[in-house]
C-alpha cells in the first residue's frame, strides 16, 4: 500500500478518573489507505475510543499519546484546536450509529446538510442548498428537493443514515470513520448503506475506518480487519482470511457466531484467558 491516509503508531489512551488511571487503548498501530479497514471487538474493547482519539473528540480526562498520529502527512497531536477544526468534518468525518440521535430534531435535514457545507466553504446559502440537493441525490435519495425540507422524525432509519452520510461527504473528506453505522438498520437497508460506502471508497478514493462488532459483515465488506481485545489489537488480518485467524480470541469470536446452514446443538462460548489482556510487545 502506497502512501497511507492515516498512520497510527503505538496509540495509547488513558482515562484519569476518581478511581485512578484506566488504560483504555494500549499501543495500537495501524494504517488506512484508500481501502476499507475494520476494527472489531466487543463492547468495552476500546474500538470506538480509537476512532474518537483520531478525531481528537475525547474529553479532557483522557490523555492521548502516540509515537505517530499522522493524517495526510501532518502530525495531528501537534495541531492546535483551530487547525483541528479545519480537519474535523472537512478532511475526516464521522458517521455514528443511530441517525435518530445524531440529527437535530428541530432543523430540516436539508438545512443540516447545508450547514455542514457552509461551515467549511465561503459560499452563499443558495449555492449550499444546490450542493446539498446534489449530495442527497448522490446517496440515492429519490426526490431530494422534497426530502431537503423534511424534519428528522419524518424520515426512516435507512434514509436518516443516508442523510448523515450526505452530510459527512459534502465537504469531500479523505477519511471516513464509521462507528457502527449499520447496527440500527434492517438487513436490506444495511445492504444499501454499505453499497453506498463501498462506492465512495472505489470511486472517490476515500479511506474508510469501519468500527463494528459484526464479524459476518466485516468479512464480506472490508479489506482488512483489526481485532481488538481489552484495548489492544490482538490480530490483524485480510478480511477474506478471517477464517484463518490464529489468536484464540478471534477464533472464539468466530466460532460463537450462529451461521445459516451450520447446525450445531450448542454454540461454543469464549473462555476468556487472563493472558489475552497482558501487554503485547510494542511495535517499532
Amino acid at each position, binding site marked *: 500500500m502506497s502512501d497511507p491516509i492515516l498512520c497510527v503508531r503505538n496509540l495509547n489512551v488513558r482515562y484519569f478518573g476518581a478511581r485512578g488511571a484506566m488504560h483504555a487503548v494500549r499501543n495500537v498501530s495501524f494504517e488506512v489507505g484508500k481501502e476499507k479497514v475494520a476494527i472489531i471487538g466487543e463492547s468495552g474493547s476500546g474500538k470506538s475510543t480509537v476512532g474518537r482519539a483520531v478525531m481528537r473528540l475525547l474529553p479532557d480526562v483522557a490523555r492521548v499519546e502516540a509515537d505517530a498520529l499522522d493524517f495526510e502527512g501532518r502530525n495531528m497531536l501537534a495541531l492546535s484546536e483551530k487547525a483541528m477544526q479545519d480537519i474535523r468534518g472537512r478532511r475526516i468525518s464521522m458517521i455514528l450509529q443511530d441517525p435518530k440521535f445524531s440529527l437535530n430534531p428541530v432543523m430540516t435535514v436539508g438545512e443540516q446538510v447545508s450547514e455542514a457545507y457552509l461551515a467549511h466553504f465561503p459560499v452563499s446559502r443558495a449555492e449550499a442548498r444546490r450542493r446539498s440537493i446534489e449530495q442527497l441525490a448522490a446517496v440515492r435519495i429519490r426526490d431530494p428537493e422534497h426530502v431537503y425540507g423534511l424534519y428528522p422524525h419524518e424520515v426512516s432509519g435507512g434514509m436518516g443514515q443516508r442523510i448523515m452520510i450526505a452530510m459527512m461527504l459534502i465537504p469531500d473528506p479523505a477519511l471516513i470513520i464509521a462507528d457502527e453505522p449499520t447496527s440500527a438498520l434492517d438487513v436490506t437497508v444495511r445492504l*444499501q448503506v454499505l453499497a453506498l460506502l463501498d462506492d465512495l471508497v472505489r470511486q472517490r478514493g476515500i479511506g474508510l475506518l469501519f468500527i463494528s*462488532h459484526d464479524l459476518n459483515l466485516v*468479512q464480506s465488506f472490508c479489506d482488512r480487519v483489526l481485532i481488538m481485545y481489552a484495548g489492544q489489537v490482538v490480530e490483524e488480518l485480510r478480511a477474506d482470511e478471517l477464517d484463518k485467524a490464529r489468536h484464540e480470541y478471534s477464533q472464539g469470536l468466530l466460532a460463537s457466531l450462529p451461521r*445459516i446452514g451450520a447446525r450445531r446443538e450448542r454454540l461454543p462460548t469464549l473462555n476468556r484467558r487472563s493472558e489475552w489482556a497482558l501487554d503485547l510487545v510494542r511495535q517499532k
Partner: protein
Amino acid sequence: MSLIDIDDLSLFLGQGARRRKILDSISFSVEAGQTYGLVGESGSGKSTVLRCIAGLYRQWTGGIAVDGQTFRQADRLGWCRNVQMVFQDPYGSLHPKHQIEDILAEPLHIHKLDNIGERVGKVLDQVGLPGKFRYRFPHQLSGGQRQRVAIARAMVLRPSIVLLDEPTSALDVSIQAEILNLFMDLREELKLTYLLVSHDLSVIDHMCSAFAVMQAGRIVEVLTRDALENNEASAPYTRTLIEASERYDRDLALRQAEAEQA
C-alpha cells in the same frame, strides 16, 4: 391440536384517519416443545404478535388459544402465569432501584405463591447466576447477567410457554452464544415451548425448527429449518432477506436498488 394456535389474528391501532392495520390475518401453530421463530424487519409486526399473545394488546380480532383454551375464556392470572415474556433490552426491562431478589419475587407475590426465598434461589441457579447476586442491583451487573435475570423472572413462575422478543440483539456475539445455549438447556430441563422473535435469520436458524417470515403485518412464508438450508425459500422477500443476512454483496445491493426504483 397444537400447544399454541393463532387463527386469523388481526389488529388495528390508532384512531380515525391515523387508524392502521398492524396485523393482517396471521395464522400459525406451535407444537409443544418446539421453538418457533418469527423473523422480519422493523415494523413488520413480529413483536406485536407476541404482545397480543401475552395480553398486552386486547383489541385484536381472531383467535389465540393455548392448549385448546382461548384467550377470551381463560382466567387472566392463570394465562399470565403460563405465558411469560423476555424482552430485548436488559437495561430497560429491570427496575434500577430494586434488588435482583425483589425483581424475581414480584411475580411470585402477584401470583400468591409461597416459598419465595427458595424459588428465587432455585431460579438463579437455573440461569447460571451465583446465589449472592440476589442482593445486587441491576447496575452492578453486565448486560449478559442482566439478561439472565430477565430470563429468571420469566422462568420463576414455571410457565410452559416463553415469548422471546429479540432476547440477544443487545448483546455481544460471545454473550449471545451463552444466552442461546441457556435457552436450549432450559427448554430441555423445564419442558418449555418458545416463540422467538428476531431480525437475525442466523439466530432463528440456530434455534428454531420452523419459522414464519413477516412483512408489513402479514406472514409471507412459513419455512422449516431444513427448507431454509436446502434453499427452498420461494417468496422473493424471503430470498432477499436470506441473501442480505449472509453477507455483503454489491451486486445484490444494486439489483435491490433497481427493483425499488421500478
